[in-house]
């Protein structure tokens, strides 16, 4: 461990504005011992984010006709101030693709798009929005972001990175979004569902949010040390997700810039400090996973169990054939017994048969009573060679049930709370003064503590405080994240940091309006509904703008912060694959259940102390949505990693959006994208009508929804014709590409033509426009 002097010396190396040092150091030095409250800095004006949002009045705007809802007034007022104008509305094909990708994460079908384009009713667009909000794929789309925040994974992380069963939590999140569970309830159940009176199984599963932490089973590590790291992670993640506040700094010292203290930190940590242990050495050297968990049931498991009981019935049912076989068996057993008897007179028992059965066998058949007969017959059936295949099948299914992931990790409170200490400099081995659970002073009001003063505050108190109307942050942070998903950038661009070091909101009135609508809708609708907020956003004129950009606009606002145009940015990793699967028709729309294993290259799973192999799924499970792909922290699905999904080792508040050659190689060459290309080729030839032009049209619209312009169409046709000539000369190559691991194509489809269309489809799936929300 580091000496204190060394630590302070090195502190001087940090680039801290000179003026701050004077107040910093003294606070630092006393921080470990006393509850010092906010840093001794004059906070005459509270930072904007720490003041409760108030519903702002609608600003006056010139172009009232453009505004479809209050969002537009706030946006337009800001644009007016800059002397800017909004863009025209996006064309319908673009609009339906955009809103489809945002709400359900899948492109519209060719028919859905046509219906919308041809719908002349004034609320044509709103009808699409409402249909999508009711679509069960909505929950899958929204869960992607939430599972990043929850650092959801299907393995424990660290060196051993053993697999874990956690999918019931993932399904809980999807279902909660689909049911539009109010965000306050959504919060309470995830933070403290286990502490609710008569907590249901679902509410316990919800607490998996903070059980997605990693678990270190490496030989030689100290379970108590890693319990501490897990606590630290729960504190940092919870504060980041709900408060948009990086409490992390205060693990070691008072926050340098925000009015948060080290004591605040450990009081926050104290809420989480009384849950059951998750690993234990139990006298050995390797920590063992002893996590509290619940068991769930699934239709699949029920079906398997039903099959077992059917097979059991077969094993229990007497048949004439079996009875006949039994007579023969009795005969042979008796012969064996006599032989033995001849040799050892004192042991009249046939070899291998239990005593009770031997005793029955010793009685001649006509002397046995009914009970004895039944018992003997049952015993015989348990060893009858004729039933051996059935018994093997039962055993096999039993192992399948054992191996089936059917549990979910949950929070479990200890009967008596643990003592919590401030840890000097954040170190695990340096506990100092004791603290009780409490919320950060700067964010709290007097009535935050439980009414019964003798009661020890729990996670449930914390959860309720997070979503109390007095908390200035939760609603703002949450609506900002919804906005960020739609526009690619939050109103507060640093969506994980609403503190003084974060960026200020580009339009605070808009943010506060949304936050107030969320907590207390003026429409009288139910509060804390994510769907209402999303609906408000996507039906605004702001959202419906074309994303085309002029050089002037690009110069004025390169990152589209002021929203004089619609959003345009690359899709998240999972959606890039989902979209390809949907366009090709390969997508399996099955929802929920244990995570699946689509095809991936050999050798991705290769870690110490683990012989686990990637068990490639069969049939439709290869083509499920990306959210169901098994995520192992040490070796995640490579196509998703190329597109900026993270390892999920810690909370991911905002994925980066990079553009790299490895992404190009993935969508060009990964079987995950070649198979959809080959499948789309079949679809084009079967459904695209006659003629290359018509087929090119369908191909384009299946992927991009809009129709190609003549130049685009001609380019595709030219490519197709060029490829057709090449593949006609190389039938073997054509066959390889046309099949690409799929089933043999129908006979009536020409193989070189299929190969040519596969190349065209591969091109389409690689276009910038395809990878981008339009």
């Amino acid at each position, binding site marked *: 461990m580091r000496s204190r002097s060394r630590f302070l010396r090195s502190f001087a190396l940090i680039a801290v504005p000179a003026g701050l040092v004077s107040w910093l150091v003294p606070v630092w030095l006393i921080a470990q011992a006393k509850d010092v409250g906010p840093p001794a800095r004059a906070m005459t004006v509270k930072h904007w984010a720490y003041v409760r949002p108030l519903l702002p009045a609608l600003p006056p705007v010139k172009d009232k006709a453009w505004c479809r809802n209050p969002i537009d007034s706030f946006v337009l007022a800001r644009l007016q101030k800059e002397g800017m104008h909004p863009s025209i509305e996006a*064309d319908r094909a673009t609009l339906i693709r955009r809103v489809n990708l945002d709400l359900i994460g899948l492109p519209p079908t060719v028919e859905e798009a046509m219906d919308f384009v041809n719908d002349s009713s004034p609320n044509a667009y709103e009808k699409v929005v409402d249909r999508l909000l009711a679509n069960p794929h909505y929950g899958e789309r929204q869960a992607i972001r939430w599972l990043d925040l929850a650092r959801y994974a299907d393995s424990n992380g660290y060196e051993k990175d053993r697999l874990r069963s956690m999918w019931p939590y993932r399904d809980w999140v999807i279902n909660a979004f689909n049911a539009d569970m109010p965000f306050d309830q959504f919060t309470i159940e995830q933070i403290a569902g286990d502490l609710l009176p008569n907590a249901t199984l679902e509410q316990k599963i919800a607490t998996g949010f903070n059980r997605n932490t990693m678990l270190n089973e490496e030989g030689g590590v100290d379970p108590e040390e890693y319990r501490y790291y897990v606590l630290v992670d729960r504190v940092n993640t919870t504060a980041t997700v709900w408060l948009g506040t990086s409490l*992390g700094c205060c693990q070691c010292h008072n926050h340098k810039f925000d009015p948060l203290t080290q004591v605040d930190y450990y009081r926050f940590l104290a809420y989480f400090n009384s849950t059951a242990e998750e690993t234990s050495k139990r006298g050995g050297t390797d920590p063992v996973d002893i996590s509290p968990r619940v068991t769930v049931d699934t239709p699949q498991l029920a079906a398997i169990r039903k099959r077992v009981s059917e097979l059991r019935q077969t094993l229990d049912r007497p048949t004439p054939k079996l009875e006949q076989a039994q007579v023969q068996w009795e005969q042979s057993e008796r012969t064996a017994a006599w032989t033995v008897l001849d040799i050892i007179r004192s042991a009249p028992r046939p070899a291998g048969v239990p005593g009770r059965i031997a005793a029955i066998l010793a009685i001649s058949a006509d002397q046995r009573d009914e009970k004895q007969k039944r018992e003997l017959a049952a015993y015989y059936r348990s060893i009858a060679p004729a039933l051996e295949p059935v018994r093997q099948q039962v055993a096999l299914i039993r192992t399948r049930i054992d191996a089936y992931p059917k549990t979910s990790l949950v929070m479990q409170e200890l009967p008596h709370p643990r003592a919590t200490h401030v840890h000097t400099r954040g170190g695990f081995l340096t506990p100092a003064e004791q603290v009780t659970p409490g919320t950060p002073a700067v964010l709290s009001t007097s009535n935050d503590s439980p009414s019964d003063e003798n009661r020890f505050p729990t996670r449930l108190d914390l959860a309720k405080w997070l979503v109390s109307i007095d908390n200035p942050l939760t609603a703002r942070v949450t609506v900002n994240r919804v906005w960020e998903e739609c526009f690619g950038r939050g109103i507060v661009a640093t969506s994980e940091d609403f503190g003084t070091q974060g960026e200020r909101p580009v339009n605070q009135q808009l943010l506060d309006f949304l936050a107030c609508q969320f907590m207390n809708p003026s429409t009288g609708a139910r509060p804390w509904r994510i769907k209402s907020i999303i609906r408000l956003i996507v039906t605004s004129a702001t959202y419906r703008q074309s994303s085309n950009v002029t050089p002037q606009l690009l110069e004025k606002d390169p*990152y589209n912060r002021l929203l004089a145009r619609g959003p345009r940015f690359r899709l998240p990793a999972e959606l890039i694959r989902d979209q390809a699967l949907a366009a090709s028709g390969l997508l399996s729309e099955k929802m929920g259940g244990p995570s699946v294993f689509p095809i991936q290259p050999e050798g991705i799973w290769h870690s110490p102390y683990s012989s686990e192999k990637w068990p490639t799924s069969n049939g439709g499970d290869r083509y499920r949505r990306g959210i169901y792909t098994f995520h192992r922290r040490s070796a995640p699905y490579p196509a998703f990693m190329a597109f900026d999904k993270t390892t999920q080792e810690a909370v991911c508040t905002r994925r980066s959006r990079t553009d790299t050659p490895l992404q190009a190689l993935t969508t060009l060459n990964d079987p995950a994208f070649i198979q959809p290309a080959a499948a789309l080729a079949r679809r084009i030839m079967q459904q695209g009508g006659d003629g290359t032009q018509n087929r090119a049209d369908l191909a384009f619209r*299946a992927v991009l929804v809009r129709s190609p312009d003549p130049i685009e169409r001609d380019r595709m046709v030219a490519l197709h014709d060029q490829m057709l000539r090449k593949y006609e000369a190389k039938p073997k190559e054509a066959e390889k*590409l046309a099949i690409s691991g799929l089933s043999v194509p129908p006979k009536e489809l020409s193989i070189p033509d299929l190969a040519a269309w596969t190349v065209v489809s591969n091109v389409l799936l690689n276009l910038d426009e395809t990878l981008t929300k339009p």
Partner: protein
Amino acid sequence: MTPRMTIDQEIRREALKAVTRRQLFRRCGTGMGAIALTSLLNEDLFAAAAGARTEPAAEPLAPKPPHFAPRAKNIIYLHMAGAPSQLDLFDHKPKLNEFNGQPIPESFTKGERFAFIKGTPKVLGSPYKFAPYGCGGTMLSELLPRLATVVDEIAVIRSMHTDQFNHAPAQLFVHTGSQLQGRPSMGSWVTYGLGTQNRDLPGFVVLLSGPNNPDGGTALWGSGFLPSVYQGTQFRSQGEPVLFVSNPKGISADVRRDSLEAIRDLNARHLACCGDPEITTRIEQYELAYRMQTTVPELTEISREPAEVHQMYGTQPGRVSFSNNCLLARRLVERGVRFVQLYDWGWDHHGAAMDNDIVHGLPQKCREVDQACTALLTDLKQRGLLAETLVIWGGEFGRTPMNEARNGSPFLGRDHHPHAFSIWMAGGGIKGGITLGATDELGYQAVEDPVHVHDLQATILACIGLEHTKLTYRFQGREFRLTDVFGNVVTKLLA
């Protein structure tokens, strides 16, 4: 998914086409001039990180100037995962042999936490002979006879120490500056700071050997909170060297070229309509991907190296080995790859069984790496690359001066030890032929010129022209850096 179209649908489809065609003319109002605007977004990365930090840099991998004149251009880091025994390789402690088998004085172990040792452990002398080599008289054990021949190129540091004593956290600590997962790795920091010189190859490449991947997993070369473009690219030892670098079955090189031309044309067409300069970047990335499809296989094809090179390294093309990786490392830096990270797994010599003791297991591992490391230094020097390439060799912690004797094991071995271990550095900017630091009589604590892991990191960055306190990235409200709030450059090591 979609049934064959009816005539009715055909008619509506025509209507859809008409509508979208009308839209198109409006869409295309922007014109091709928009392409020229890419340069507008070409912000300097540091400016982007400091000010508009939520914005991606348009050219995140473009070469960037260092903070000061660099001593080295490239880094090859040879990590011996599992932690080699310094007491049997570099840190000669005759006292251990003198007290061999006696209980270690309690003053050493009081209050200590061990990974596996229980009770009072006994001192374990080294079974190997040590001797001074080279002009500098560097002490090496007989397990590294080849390294002894180039010892004047290397600086041995015997006073390394760390905070961690389990593999995964300690490896993470060495490579990311934190024992927990989620921080950027050293190679990511370096590519973030300096960009890459060869745009046809990744700037940060990882090569693995040994029966397993390193304990710390992919987080060891992850980019943490830095954009993922800075993460290490693992060149796989089996199958394709870079994932998906080969064309799929049935797509030849010329079909790929034709299809890339179509992608480029259609992207350019769309750029003309919608004006988003991101499309230009995408067009470039596809060109780069195409070039990688030829450069990567050429690079990893080591069989074309002359026989004497194979003899020098002990390489066998097609085999997965540390030797092959060393040769590949040379080929990578030759082509301007900034940071080459090797992991060789299997140095965890506890003595719990014969194959992981210091009598059988350790010499075996030494045989596997001694020749290749020496060849790498020699080869780099012959090509004039050593002066601009920093080479680092070492593990994640040291090993105890005591025999572990887990469950009374009869095999000799040492437990994990964070307080003292040895590494060596060579090449770009490093003073050769020196030995830095010393441990106490029993090799328990680093007592002279102690070098903490954060100091090592600061020194590595200094060699490549980066000031470790200035190489920062803002995340969740604070500036992060590789060395956390610690680290001092070890100037005694620098030439």
